[in-house]
């Protein structure tokens, strides 16, 4: 009778694959946490390159604003166009502005901006730092006794924390205006009726939460992207892998954090 070896089974092979995925997951998580510690250490000591921070903030704003405004504006138009007519029919015309603004402030503007910023900024940060890593530029920095965490990471991550809320505020305003215009054009809802209900339904607390969430998203996207780039290895393929990792991890992270915010503040 043939002996049974677990190592020859399909289940064992599946376990091996899962083990590999788990190892990669935990390694990446560890790298992100270690990098977060290094960055915070410098921020707490106020060891920040101000010139580089200003440059990174400008870069963040200029690169992300057009695509963020486009995406948030279009999604607001999509929602308002479909909802306004129905709400007016059901006698809820006075609540269209409230609905659109609540949706934008609590959820849509932040998450859509987050997605846009992952595409525009996250992928760019990861590929830039990964290229510097595989072409020895980061090693050159270390030999010159310049701290790469202070010079590269701290300004990029701080720019995420500072600029993402500003981008989200502008995108939210743009989205509300887009919603008002599309409700007016598609269903004849007056601007006055729309904006009256915006003030009626929107709380200051919602705005604070939105701004805080945006800062957390900006921090997380920049941290994950820079870390993915920093641990890249192996030439062009390494740069590609780092960029993919930054995008995938940032996506999952911001959706997860969004869920935590929803549970924490609105459950």
């Amino acid at each position, binding site marked *: 009778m043939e002996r049974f070896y677990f190592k020859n089974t399909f289940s064992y092979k599946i376990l091996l694959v899962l083990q590999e995925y788990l190892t990669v997951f935990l390694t990446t998580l560890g790298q992100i946490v270690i990098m977060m510690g290094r960055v915070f250490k410098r921020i707490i000591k106020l060891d920040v390159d101000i010139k580089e921070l200003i440059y990174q903030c400008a870069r963040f704003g200029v690169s992300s604003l057009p695509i963020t405004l486009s995406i948030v504006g279009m999604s607001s138009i999509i929602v308002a166009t479909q909802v306004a007519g129905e709400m007016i029919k059901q006698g809820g015309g006075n609540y269209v502005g409230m609905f659109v603004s609540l949706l934008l402030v609590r959820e849509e503007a932040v998450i859509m901006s987050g997605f846009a910023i992952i595409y525009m900024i996250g992928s760019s940060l990861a590929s830039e730092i990964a290229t510097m890593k595989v072409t020895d530029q980061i090693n*050159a920095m270390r030999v010159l006794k310049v701290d790469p965490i202070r010079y590269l990471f701290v300004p990029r991550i701080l720019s995420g924390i500072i600029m993402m809320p500003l981008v989200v505020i502008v995108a939210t305003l743009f989205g509300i205006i887009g919603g008002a215009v599309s409700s007016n054009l598609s269903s004849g809802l007056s601007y006055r009726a729309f904006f009256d209900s915006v003030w009626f339904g929107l709380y200051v607390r919602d705005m604070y939460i939105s701004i805080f969430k945006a800062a957390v998203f900006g921090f997380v996207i920049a941290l994950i992207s820079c870390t993915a780039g920093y641990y890249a290895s192996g030439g062009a393929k390494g740069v590609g892998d780092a960029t993919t990792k930054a995008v995938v991890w940032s996506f999952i992270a911001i959706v997860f954090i969004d869920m935590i915010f929803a549970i924490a503040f609105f459950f």
Partner: protein
Amino acid sequence: MGIQVKNLVKEFDNKKVIDDISFSVNDGEILAIVGFSGSGKSTVLKLISGLLTQDSGEIITTGDIAMVFQYSALFDSLNVFDNISFALVERKDLRKKYTQTDLERVVKEKLELVGLSGIEDKFPSELSGGMQKRVSFARAIVTEPQIILYDEPTAGLDPISSTLIEDYIVRLKKETNAASIVVTHQMSTIKRTADKVIMLYNGKIVFAGTPEELQREETPYTKQFVNASLDGPMKMFAE
């Protein structure tokens, strides 16, 4: 006393890449480290520069260390001026010591030393391979280092650019009196720059002497290296 390396050992994945090597380089002297690809030459430079940490052994150095990387490793988002002045502007102990006028003077001086005046505003992508290499020389010496490490400085360059780079290595030695190590596998670089040579194979030193002694082919290792022969004690894919 420039560089002293004693009983250096470095392992990767339980394999000794550097296996108990010792050597020294005096101020104003150039040591060439030669050997086939994968013999541990670049690892020695990374250990001396502090990019890697040894498993055992001792590295004693005096003063600042500068390194010229194989593919220059210039910061491609910065222009030549910012590349060369980078350490003076960003290094903790040097920050704020230099005014803009000082920086302009130092960068001009270093560019003149490598024969490249007036290219301060150019970006690395606008320069040829040889020019990038010379800018990386200028960047390396901006902090007046006492030790300069060159990782395959002539790799990928045409013969004339290689000769030019070799001349600058010798010139920098004379100007700075630094202890220098040149990792290379090119005979021309060894002959034109080195005062002494060590040959690595499987992480061990299999030859130590002068460039003239290397060329005399007195050992099976030097004979195989100088003749670029496949027959000999050194196997490219040794187990």
